[in-house]
C-alpha cells in the first residue's frame, strides 16, 4: 500500500486553493462557529431572569484594579517567599542534624567496624552520601513549602490575573506576561520554572522565558546569599542595623536578577530571537476553589519529588568528584589545590578567587553544596584548623566561625559582593540545563542558556572588581 501516487490530488488541491483565495481558514472557522451557534440555540437555555451574581467578576475587579491590584499581588508573592524562606529553616536544620550530624558519623563508625578501606568509605560516605544528604536537607523543605502554595494559587485561578496585570511590563521587553509566573516559579527552583514555561504558547516568548529563568534566585542560592550578606555586609554597618542591611543586600541582588531578566529578554527579542514566531493570548479562566489536600498531594508528587530526585541523581556524582579531586594527588598537590592555583589569577581579576571558581565548577549539579565546598576547599588550601578533612564538605553552626574561615582564606568585602553577584549570574545547575534541553530539544539554545549567564557574571564581577580597586 506504501507510496501511493497522489501527485494529481496535490496538484488539484493547489489549484483549488488558488481559486478559493487566502480566506479559507477564516471561512472554515466562521462556518464551524455558525454551526455551533445553531446547535446552541436549539439546546441551551439560560434563565436570564434570575440575575446572576458573578462572584468571579467581583474578585477580578479587585485583583486587577489600579489601586489594589499590585499591593495584593506583592503581598501574596512576598508572603509565599517569606513563608518559604523562614518556614524552611526549622525542618532544614532538623534534616541537617539528622542526615549530616547524626547519620554521617554513624555511617563512618559503621564502615570502620567492617574494615572498609579508607578510600572507599571516603568516596562513598564523605563524597556521595554527604552531597546527597546536603541537597536533601537544603532543598526539600523550601520546595515542600513553596510548590504546594504556588500550586494552590494556580488551581484557584489567581495566577493568570498576575500575568494579566504585569503583561505590559513584559511586553516592553519583548516577553509574555506569563513569564512573571515562570520567574516566580524560578524562585523556588529554576528547573521547575523552565518546565512551567509550557504555559507560554508563543515560541519566541517561551524561549525567552526559558533562557532568562536562571536570573531568578532559586532556593539553592537564597541561603548562600543570606549567609554571605550576614557575614560581610552586616558587618560594615552598626550592629543594630546589621540584619536589616544584610536583608537589603539580598533583596538588591534579587531585584538585580529581575533587571537582568528584563534586559536580557529585551536584547534577545531584538536580536537572536527576532525571527521566532510571536503570538499572544491569555485566557482568564473562572475561579475554582482548589481541592486542598489533593492539590498538596499532587504538587508534592509532581513537582517536589521529581525535582528532588533529579537533583539527587546529579548531586551524587558531584559529591564523588569533590572527594576525588581533594584526595587524588599529582606530585605533591591534590588535583583541587592544583586547579585552585591555576585559577587564582583569573579569580583575582574577577574579584573572586580560585577556590570559588573551582567550587562553582564542581558544584554545577547543585547550588546547595557551593558553600560547604568552598569551606572545605578553603581549609584544604590554607591549612588552617577546622573542617573534617580533605574532600569532606562541612558547614558550621556559627556564622562567625564561618566568617573566620573565609577571612583566613583571604576574603574581603569585595570578594563577598562579587560572590553574591556571581551566585546570581552563573550557569544554571545541571538539573536545569538538562531540563532546558528536554524542553527546547535544541543543543544550541541549551548551550546558549548555560553559557550566557556565566559570561555576564564574568563581565559584571570583573567591572565591579576593577572599579572597586580604583575607588578604594
Amino acid at each position, binding site marked *: 500500500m506504501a507510496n501511493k501516487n497522489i501527485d494529481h490530488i496535490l496538484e488539484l488541491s493547489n489549484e483549488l486553493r488558488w481559486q478559493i483565495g487566502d480566506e479559507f481558514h477564516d471561512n472554515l*472557522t466562521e462556518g464551524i462557529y455558525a454551526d455551533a451557534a445553531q446547535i446552541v440555540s436549539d439546546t441551551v437555555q439560560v434563565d436570564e431572569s434570575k440575575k446572576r451574581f458573578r462572584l468571579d467578576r467581583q474578585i477580578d475587579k479587585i485583583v486587577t484594579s489600579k489601586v489594589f491590584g499590585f499591593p495584593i499581588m506583592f503581598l501574596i508573592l512576598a508572603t509565599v517567599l517569606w513563608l518559604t524562606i523562614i518556614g524552611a529553616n526549622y525542618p532544614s536544620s532538623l534534616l541537617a542534624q539528622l542526615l549530616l550530624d547524626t547519620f554521617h558519623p554513624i555511617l563512618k563508625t559503621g564502615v570502620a567496624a567492617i574494615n572498609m578501606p579508607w578510600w572507599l568509605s571516603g568516596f562513598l560516605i564523605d563524597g556521595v552520601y554527604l552531597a546527597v544528604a546536603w541537597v536533601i536537607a537544603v532543598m526539600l523543605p523550601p520546595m515542600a513549602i513553596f510548590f504546594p502554595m504556588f500550586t494552590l494559587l494556580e488551581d484557584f485561578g489567581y495566577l493568570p490575573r498576575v500575568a494579566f496585570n504585569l503583561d505590559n511590563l513584559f511586553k516592553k521587553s519583548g516577553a509574555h506576561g506569563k513569564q512573571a509566573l515562570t520567574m516566580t516559579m524560578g524562585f523556588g527552583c529554576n528547573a521547575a520554572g523552565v518546565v512551567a514555561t509550557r504555559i507560554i504558547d508563543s515560541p519566541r516568548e517561551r524561549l525567552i522565558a526559558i533562557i532568562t529563568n536562571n536570573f531568578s534566585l532559586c532556593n539553592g542560592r537564597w541561603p548562600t546569599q543570606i549567609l554571605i550578606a550576614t557575614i560581610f555586609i552586616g558587618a560594615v554597618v552598626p550592629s543594630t542595623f546589621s540584619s536589616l542591611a544584610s536583608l537589603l543586600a539580598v533583596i538588591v541582588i534579587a531585584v538585580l536578577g529581575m533587571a537582568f531578566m528584563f534586559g536580557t529578554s529585551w536584547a534577545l527579542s531584538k536580536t537572536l530571537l527576532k525571527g521566532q514566531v510571536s503570538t499572544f493570548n491569555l485566557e482568564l479562566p473562572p475561579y475554582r476553589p482548589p481541592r486542598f489536600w489533593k492539590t498538596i498531594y499532587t504538587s508534592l508528587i509532581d513537582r517536589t519529588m521529581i525535582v528532588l530526585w533529579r537533583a539527587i541523581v546529579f548531586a551524587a556524582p558531584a559529591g564523588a568528584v569533590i572527594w576525588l579531586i581533594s584526595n587524588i594527588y599529582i606530585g605533591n598537590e591534590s588535583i583541587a589545590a592544583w586547579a585552585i592555583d591555576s585559577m587564582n589569577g583569573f579569580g*583575582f581579576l574577577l574579584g573572586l578567587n580560585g577556590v570559588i571558581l573551582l567550587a562553582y565548577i564542581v558544584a554545577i549539579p547543585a547550588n546547595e553544596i557551593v558553600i560547604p565546598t568552598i569551606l572545605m576547599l578553603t581549609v584544604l588550601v590554607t591549612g588552617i584548623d577546622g573542617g573534617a578533612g580533605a574532600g569532606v564538605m562541612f558547614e558550621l553552626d556559627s556564622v562567625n566561625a564561618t566568617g573566620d574561615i573565609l577571612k583566613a582564606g583571604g576574603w574581603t568585602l569585595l570578594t563577598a559582593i562579587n560572590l553574591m553577584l556571581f551566585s546570581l549570574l552563573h550557569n544554571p545547575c545541571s538539573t536545569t540545563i538538562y531540563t532546558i534541553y528536554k524542553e527546547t530539544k535544541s543543543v544550541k539554545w541549551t548551550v546558549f542558556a548555560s553559557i550566557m549567564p556565566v559570561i555576564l557574571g564574568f563581565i559584571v564581577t570583573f567591572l565591579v572588581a576593577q572599579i572597586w580597586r580604583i575607588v578604594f
Partner: protein
Amino acid sequence: MKYNPTYALILFFIISGVLYVLFRPAKGWFWIIKNNFKSNEKIVTEDILKQLYHFENSGNKVDTKTLLQVLDFNNNQIIEVVKKMTINDLIYFESDVLKLTNAGRDYALRIVRIHRLWERYLADKTGFSKEEWHDRAEMMEHKLNHDETNTLAAHLGNPKFDPHGDPIPTKTGKVAEVHGVELPLLPVNSIGRITHIEDEPEIIYKQILAENIHMGSLIRVVENNATRIVFLSEGEEFRLAPIVAANLTVAPIEKEIIIEDNIARLSSLKEDETAIITGISKESRGESRRRLLDLGFVKGATIKIDLINPLGEPNAYLIKGTSIALRKDQAAKILIKKD
C-alpha cells in the same frame, strides 16, 4: 606587565569596542566583508532584470544612465554585466533604451516570485518585523533555486499575493492583477479598499507603518489637495502628505455601499459598550490570526470589555462566555460594529 585595575578596565573596553565594530548586527565589518565577497555577477544580473521589469510595468523607459543611478553597484561592473546580458539574449537595446527579451522577462518574473514568496513566508511563518521583510527578501531572491522556490510556495499554500498586496507570479509566470489606483487620484468622498502598500522607499514605508494603516481597510476620502490627503477608516482619521499617500493603492468601490460610521477597531471599544465583530484585518497574519479565530473572534460574535488593565494593556474581552486578554496592537486589527 604589572596588573593595574585602570589598565585592565581600558583593555576590556578596547576589546569590547573592537568586537562591537566587527560583529554588530547587519552593519558589523565582518558581515559587510562577508557579503561583499558574495556580490557577484549573478546578483548584478538579477537586480538589473528586476529593475527593468519594474520599469516596464510602470511604463517608464530606461537607458544605461538611469540604470547606473538606481543600482547600488560599481558602475564598471554594471556596464560589463549589461554587455554580457545582451550577448546571452536576456536584454536588448532599442536605440538607447534597454528592453527585456522574453527569456529576460521570464527570468525577472522568477526573481520577483522568490522575493514576494519570501516576504509572504517572513510575514506568515516568522516573527520578523515588517521593516525587515524587504531587505531579507532582497538577499534571499538570489539564493533559492527553482525547486526550492516551488517547495516554499507549496508550503505556504501557493499564495496569490505578498503581504504588501503585490501579486506573486505563479510557477508558469501568471500574474494576478492588482485593482486600484494611487490614493491621491481619488476624488473627495469616494470610497475604496486599500489593496496595496508599497514598501519602497523605506522612509515613506516606515511613515505608513507608524500611522497604523492596514491592508484591506475600507476608506473614505474626506479631503484631497496639494498639501494633504485626509481619509476616514475604521473609526479613525488619517492625514497623509500626497507623496506618502501615493504609496497606497486603493480599489474604488463602484457599488454604493454605505460605510457605516459605527465601524471601528476593537481597540476603541469603551467599557460598558457592546459590539459585534465584523472581521479581522488582513494585517493580522499567520499563527496570530488563526489563534484569534480559534478563540472565537469571528464575524458576528458579540464582544465587550470584561476587565480594564491597570497598566493600560492588555484588556480582557468577554467573547463567547470566556474572558480573553488581547494586547492593543491585536485589538486594533479586529473590526467591530458598535451597538
